């Protein structure tokens, strides 16, 4: 419920403020706001959000092998 509530809240906010921004000739603000709100609500969706890439997951993929190599070279075990 909490997730769905936040997803709805953020999408509603994005839509209302996005429309106001458009009416005030701030198209770029509206665009980024809507994108930001869509991204946030995607993270809040139950099944999609849990499988979405986060900074932690991305860094584990990219830096994990580097960290393991460096640590084995330094002789520091897990």
């Amino acid at each position, binding site marked *: 419920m*909490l*997730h769905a509530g*936040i997803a709805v*809240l*953020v999408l509603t*906010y*994005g839509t209302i*403020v996005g429309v106001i*921004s458009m009416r005030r000739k*701030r198209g*770029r*603000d509206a665009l*980024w*706001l809507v994108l*930001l*709100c869509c*991204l*946030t609500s995607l*993270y*809040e969706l139950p099944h999609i*959000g*849990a499988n*979405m890439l*986060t*900074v*932690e*997951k991305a*860094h*584990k993929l*990219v*830096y*994990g092998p*580097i*960290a*393991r190599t*460096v*640590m084995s070279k*330094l*002789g*520091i075990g*897990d």
Partner: protein
Amino acid sequence: MPAKQGQITFTSFGCLLFSYLSGFSTLFLIEAKFLNQDVWMAYSIGMALSFGILWLLHRTQIRLPNLTMLEVFDHALGKLFSRVVLCFYLVYLLEIQGDASQALTSFYRSVVLPNTPTNSILLMLALTTTYAVSVGFHAIVRSVLLALPFFLLGIAFILLMISQDVHTNPFLPPFRHSAALIGYGGLLSFFLPFGKSIVFCFLFDRIGSGRKKMASIFAALFLAGLYLCAATYLTFGSLGMRLTSHSLFPFFSAIQLVKLGEYLERIEIMIIGIWTLFTVFEIIVLQYIFVQLFTHVFRIQRPKWFVLPIGLLFFAISERSFREVYDQDYYNSHIAPFSTLIPTVVIPLLLFVVGSIRLKRLSGA
């Protein structure tokens, strides 16, 4: 010297940096678990490296003293490349805030609120930090100045009480670890807590330029290091090396040993309240800087409207990250020391080198 319009004093800046560094630094004591009695060397390396990088950023900024650090990035690296580079900082801020939020939540769930769902604590945290960011930078600084005496008093009291259990110097005998391990410990302490101070370069325009700026940064780093060293010393002294290495929150375990009289037990709960307040300040500062960077990178005209969605994005990202506390421990000790090197070392060095070539021409013209 009074601060100019819209700026804060050097003392306020130093206090803000100290509170930012001290909030979450004593929570896990990762480098202490790696290095035991030689941990002070790691702290010294972390402090020296952070001060060196901030000094380089300061040298770059004073070439164009009337511009903000973000504009200095644009001038030095070119508008397009600087935006790409600043995106690394956005990712870094998301990483650090997720880490700090989850650390605080797991700590609260283990110690004070075991039946409260993680989501609820994270949401409360996100709403608090969002409100704090929306009231502005000066309000954040003033609240830090208000909370700092309580923090110092509470921590000084608790350190004094723990010191009664310490009978031998736990930092002896020194030099028991290899240079490689000490170097890695230095990297760990650079990631957490000292290297986090690099993002304060984006607040350089909020204080005047000159030597006092670096003096306030040095004082804040030194005092944060001193506090961390004292906390580690007393934790080792009261718990011993073995228990410290196996404890998830070693400093808290040491605090729990403090008993004041027969009826005033659980005094640590009061101290925790003040202690964790500084972690909240850390997330507030991170969110504030994130809004500044986001506004600059995407050329937003009205940043106020982005504060709430950014707060909710912080909530969503931190909720989806570090689901298990041991995941977080592994991430902090193995992945983050490497993943944070680009924004904290590589980019400042690049900015300094490119800036010293390009900005010299610009300031001379």
